[in-house]
Structures are given as structure tokens and as C-alpha cells.
């Protein structure tokens, strides 16, 4: 806003001034905000995500898994995928979550120079999240989870979603839990070092 556009509150703005003010508005609106792709999923009812660049493939959870004796419970075994063998791990123990009871789905994840299938309970979405929307992990996060958290993301509730949730909750409050964005390098490094 320039001085020439400043007016006293009690004076109505003329059309000419209004148009001039709009025309001089030289703010640049970045319509292509930098985004990152994330794969959103659930483990033990909690919402997590892994970066899309680390997830090579999403497979149905009913792939035959071959049990390999001599491994911790967090390693289910191996799958035979197009001529290759991939390990299958669960993150529940590493993230201090109760063990899963469903087959869910498998994400083929590459990180820390390692490639492995990771079992998830439920796939929510694959979406682009503006980098500016990512929040650092708060100190209140559990110490078990903290080393593996890259950021948090609080999804915005659209008016349509708000209406749906209000109807579902009989007008109750709309609350959306934050999604924990995981660092796959930290997860695999910890797993390799014997954690989980």
C-alpha cells in the first residue's frame, strides 16, 4: 500500500482509487510452492508418512512371505519379487507400537543404501505437501519416536471435510491429528544396528 492510496476511514474509496490500488499491487504470489511427495499410512491406528522418493513400490500385503529362522520378530522374512529377494520388516517394535494384526500392505523402501519391504497396516494416500507446511517435531514427542521423525504435518480440513465430519459427529468439533513424517535413513540405520 502506497501513501497515495491511504485514505481516511470516513471517506468512501472511489472506483478509480480502488482500481489503482489493485493495479499497483506488485506482490508476487508463488502459485508453485515447493512440495514434497509423501506416502501416508497407518501403523497401530497412528498416522505416519515416508517420503515418496524413498518408496519405490507399493504392494498388496498378501504377498507370500518366506520365514527365515534366526531373525528378530520385527523381521518377518523375505518375499520373492520379480526374481529378487527382499527382506520384510515391521516398524512397530522400533516405534514402540503394539504389533499389527492385519496383513495391510507392503512398501518397498530404499534408504541408507538399503532396500527392504516395510509392512504397514493401512495405506491412506500419496500426496504432495508444501515444504512450508512441515513443522519440526515438538519436544513433547516420545523419546522412542523422536530419532526417526523428520517433521510433522497437520493436514488442513477443507470446508467439505468439515461439513462431513460435523455430520458424522452430530456437530461435534473437527479435529485432525498431526501426521508423523518419518526419516527412512534413520529407521534403516537403527534397524541395522540392532534396534527394533
Amino acid at each position: 500500500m502506497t501513501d497515495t492510496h491511504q485514505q481516511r476511514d470516513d471517506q468512501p474509496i472511489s472506483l478509480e482509487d480502488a482500481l489503482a490500488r489493485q493495479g499497483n499491487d506488485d506482490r508476487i504470489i508463488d502459485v508453485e510452492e515447493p512440495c514434497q511427495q509423501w506416502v501416508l499410512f497407518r501403523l497401530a491406528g497412528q498416522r505416519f508418512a515416508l517420503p515418496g522418493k524413498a518408496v519405490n513400490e507399493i504392494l498388496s500385503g498378501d504377498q507370500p512371505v518366506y520365514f527365515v529362522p534366526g531373525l528378530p520378530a520385527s523381521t518377518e522374512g523375505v518375499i520373492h519379487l520379480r526374481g529378487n529377494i527382499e527382506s520384510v520388516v515391521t516398524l512397530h517394535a522400533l516405534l514402540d507400537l503394539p504389533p499389527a494384526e492385519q496383513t495391510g500392505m507392503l512398501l518397498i523402501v530404499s534408504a541408507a543404501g538399503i532396500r527392504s519391504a516395510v509392512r504397514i497396516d493401512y495405506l491412506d494416500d500419496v500426496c504432495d505437501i508444501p515444504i512450508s507446511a512441515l513443522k519440526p517435531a515438538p519436544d513433547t514427542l516420545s523419546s522412542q519416536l523422536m530419532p526417526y521423525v523428520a517433521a510433522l504435518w497437520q493436514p488442513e480440513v477443507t470446508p467439505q471435510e468439515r461439513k462431513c465430519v460435523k455430520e458424522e459427529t452430530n456437530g461435534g468439533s473437527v479435529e485432525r491429528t498431526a501426521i508423523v513424517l518419518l526419516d527412512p535413513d534413520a529407521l534403516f540405520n537403527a534397524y541395522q544396528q540392532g534396534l527394533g
Partner: protein
Amino acid sequence: MESGTPGPASDSATHVALVLFSAGYTLAAIEARHVAGLTKSAHLSRCANAEYLLLNAQLLNKAPTHWLTLQDAQGAWQLGVSGDVALAHIPITELFPLPSLIAARHVSPALRGLTLANQTVRLLFDGGALSPDLTL
């Protein structure tokens, strides 16, 4: 899977000679060049049960039925195995290197790879890296 042929045939460039055995209920194998002999009973002072040595089993499911003679830095020793023991030439296309996370977390540092035989995993161990003195 594991369509290898028993006996001495097969091309050494495309097949690997493996001694197949069981460690308890687990199928396992060692490269044949590491196996110096096979006996029905242990006769060397240095010996170990495969179920314990390869899988760190605290309760043994099966008593050894055969003893493979292997070699380490201290000399000859015997590995007690169960089930049928067979020599097979397995095509290299059926031998899978160990995924990194499996290698990092398996109880045996001598585990090198695996094959899939009739929907069951067979663990491939490095006979040269085994020793009855190995502590898991």
C-alpha cells in the same frame, strides 16, 4: 526353485556344488568344497550341533543324524546335522544374496544367501566362516 541336480554333472560356471542338510527343522546348505567328509557319528573332539551353531537354538528340535567334517584355523571339526544329506549342483540363478537387513540382524555371521525350495527357504552358510568355537 532349487532345481539342482545331484551328482557330479553340471557346468561349474553356472552351478554351485552344495551339501544340503537340515539344522533342526530348517533347511540349510554349505558349499561342497568346505566339506571334507561325512560320517554317521562324531569322532573328533571339536564338534558342534548345526541347530545351535547356525541358528542359536537353545532347545534342539532334532538330534544330529550325520556329521560333516569341516576345517577352520584350528584344524578339522565336525558339524552335527539332521535329515537327509545330499550333494546338489544348484544353478546360480537360484542363489539369492542376502538382503542387507537380513545380513545385519541374523544370529549367524556366516549366513551368506538363500534359495527357495518348494516354498521354503534354504539358508546358505559360508563353511569357511564357521567354527565350533564361534559364539553367537
